[in-house]
């Protein structure tokens, strides 16, 4: 055990399942359209508008009902909001990058293509464009994965995408459809929670485990 482990003294509260009854009214519907910060605003974020849509399957390839999905991404400049860049003029003020929904296995997010995340914090690698997806559901506590985009040159050197074994890497890459939706490119990213074609998920538990 390294010294950092002992600094983290308090035992963490256990994650628990969200259950089947996450209150629908906690979610604002407009949280699934990041191309406008608020429906009443005329301002639009910079960048190429895209649609990211897909389905969430269980082990039997049935749609998983009552799942809560959260999305988190950088703006078109590759700036992802964090405590280290509060007030940075490089942040797009018309974009906050956080969306969520509770769906019966099908989601559709209107957003902008995230920029390539530039290293802002010491030791960080440059990243291919990605959208982080967190999944809460009855049956497990929390899963996280990241969706990449077909045709992005940096995919080949992205450390997270490359952390997945080669045979399953393509499951982390959203494919572009031939047709568009209202003139906006559409990407498809299906999530398979378990079994054949299972989506790779990541262990983002903090500190104790991965610093040991």
């Amino acid at each position, binding site marked *: 055990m390294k010294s950092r482990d002992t600094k983290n003294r308090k*035992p963490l509260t*256990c994650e628990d399942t969200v259950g089947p*009854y996450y209150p629908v*009214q906690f979610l604002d519907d407009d949280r699934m359209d990041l191309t406008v910060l608020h429906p009443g605003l005329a301002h639009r974020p910079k960048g190429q508008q895209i649609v990211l849509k897909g389905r969430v399957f269980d082990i*039997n390839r049935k749609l998983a009902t009552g799942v809560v999905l959260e999305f988190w991404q950088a703006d078109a400049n590759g700036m992802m909001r964090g405590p280290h860049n509060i007030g940075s003029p490089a942040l797009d003020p018309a974009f906050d990058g956080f969306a969520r929904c509770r769906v019966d296995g099908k989601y559709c997010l209107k957003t902008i293509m995230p920029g390539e*995340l530039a290293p802002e914090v010491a030791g960080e690698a440059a990243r291919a464009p990605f959208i982080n997806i967190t999944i*809460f559901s009855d049956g497990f506590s929390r899963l996280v994965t990241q969706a990449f985009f077909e045709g992005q040159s940096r995919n080949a050197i*992205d450390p997270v995408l490359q952390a997945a074994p080669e045979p399953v890497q393509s499951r982390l890459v959203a494919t572009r459809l031939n047709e568009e939706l209202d003139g906006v490119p559409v990407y498809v990213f299906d999530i398979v929670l378990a079994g054949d074609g299972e989506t790779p998920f990541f262990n983002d538990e903090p500190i104790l485990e991965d610093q040991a």
Partner: protein
Amino acid sequence: MSGKILRIGPTDNTSDERTPRSPLLAIPKTARRGFAPWLNPRPASGTGLLDLTHIAPGKPRAQGSAIEVSGRISDGYGRPLRRAVIEVWSANTHGRYAHKDDQTDYELDPDFIGMGKLISDDDGGYVFHTILPGHYIARPDIGRWRPRHIHFSILGGASRLITQMYFKGDPHNDTDPMRILMGDKWEALQVGKEYATADNTTDVGYRFDITVAGKDAVFFE
């Protein structure tokens, strides 16, 4: 490197269908940022105590035993999580959720919704009033119960946590699949600690302190 394998909740059908079978992948140290949303602290709501025991002013108090729930949210170093969004939801005294997807036969209380949001204060503290939730049978086919519990979602800083607070003495505690998965940590970390409340608005108080981790270690160094 061997990854963590998630365990399947015993006797939980959904868990069997939805739990990944492959080990979770390790995240390279150079790319830890971005796995949990970082949200700006919300402005203090200033709306006073969240009281779920009344559906609206002037309406009768919800059925069951009124309780106070309070605690403090901090990170592993004890630093307060200020102005985090806390969402709470639970069943009514009969074990029924006021949720469209709860199709059970348990009685609906017209004076209880049991869902609310509040904001932690500058010390990470929170307090709300609600009704002691009932336990309910989640899988009648195999006789599996859920003991009394209140769901909590914490959104703020670089953390993202969904958890549940449990109550001592519920006959269904020991057979609960989530409690079994948590093992020894359950009693110390997940059970509300009883206290006497100052006035008689509520029957009893439960203290539930929550410790979150920065899911993104970058922000916590």
